[in-house]
């Protein structure tokens, strides 16, 4: 244990200064990356099926209604729990939006899809990384609510209820 009054040596002082310079450099780098991210122009999400690879076609009713698209990564346990939770909800198949899955951050085309057949909005693979690179979205488990014409009505967070009225 060091005494508080023990002198700080020149070497220790130099190490401390170097560490502080590194810390400030990291801080400046974070601020710079944040600033670049915030000032970049992102696309407003719009559902255009031609931009994604369809792995499972949506039901015939999907074209008539809006859709909830779940940002889903197969390696994410929260995504699986979120999908199960969305499938458990009571839904009116005649009126409610269909539920679709958008596979995000998946490099290669999946060989098999372990997603419930009750997903009536189809399963699409974001092969071009549109969700992350063009739309700027990053939270797995979020639900994008698209209108029938493909325009985005709203985004719903991973913990929030997509059926709830928007605030």
């Amino acid at each position, binding site marked *: *244990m*060091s*005494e508080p009054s023990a002198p*700080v040596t020149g070497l220790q*002082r130099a190490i401390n200064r170097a560490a502080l310079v590194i810390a400030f450099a990291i801080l400046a780098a974070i601020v710079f990356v944040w600033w670049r991210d915030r000032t970049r122009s992102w696309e407003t999400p719009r559902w255009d099926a031609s931009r994604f690879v369809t792995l499972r076609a949506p039901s015939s009713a999907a074209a008539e209604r809006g859709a909830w698209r779940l*940002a889903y990564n197969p390696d994410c346990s929260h995504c*699986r729990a979120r999908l199960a939770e969305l499938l458990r909800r009571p839904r009116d198949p005649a009126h409610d939006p269909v539920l679709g899955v958008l596979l995000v951050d998946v490099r290669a085309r999946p060989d098999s899809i372990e997603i419930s057949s009750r997903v009536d909005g189809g399963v699409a693979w974001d092969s071009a990384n549109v969700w992350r690179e063009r739309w700027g979205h*990053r939270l797995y488990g979020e639900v994008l609510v698209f209108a029938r014409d493909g325009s985005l009505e709203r985004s719903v967070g*991973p913990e929030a209820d997509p059926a709830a009225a928007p605030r």
Partner: protein
Amino acid sequence: MHDPDRRPSPLAAGPPWWAWPLLLPGPLLAWHACVESEMERSASALPFAPSAIAWIGVAGFACALVVETLVYGMLWAARGRRLPFASSVLVLLQLSMIDRVALAIGSHVPEAGAARALACVLAGSRATWVGAAPDGVSAALGSLGVLTLARMALWAWVQAEGTGRRWREAASMVALVWAGSHVVQGLVAELARGRSVVS
């Protein structure tokens, strides 16, 4: 300014050997219970028992306390003073129980009423969140409440005692580091979510 007439602080001599087994288990077990309950609540499938993984979380938390003490040690060294390391880490671990109380308040907040307002005053606005912080500003400042201010004040007192400097000087440093680190926390939260919304 350093006051040469100040009595030497017991912090400077470091904790006696018997203090460690008395002071370590309580906070570590409290944080383990906190991490374990959080994992059981949020994770659907874990490769190991939550208890085992929670100990990894506790180890990470302990490392964070060590790093926090090292940062302050560096800052004081840059000002030509030494912060007693071992005793500071041990006291900081005890002070972390204030954070634990703030988290406990956050998990028992009613939907509305005066108790909810009181929880916000004590534990900050994060007491009322469901899940993650809704935005970067909240991520940065959501924990700011009376309990956080108390922890900062006590941590400043510990540093003032350990370095022989005035409390005001130590408190300025603690406030500056807290503000800087929480601004970074807010920026990182915004980077992590991008244009996704949290709630």
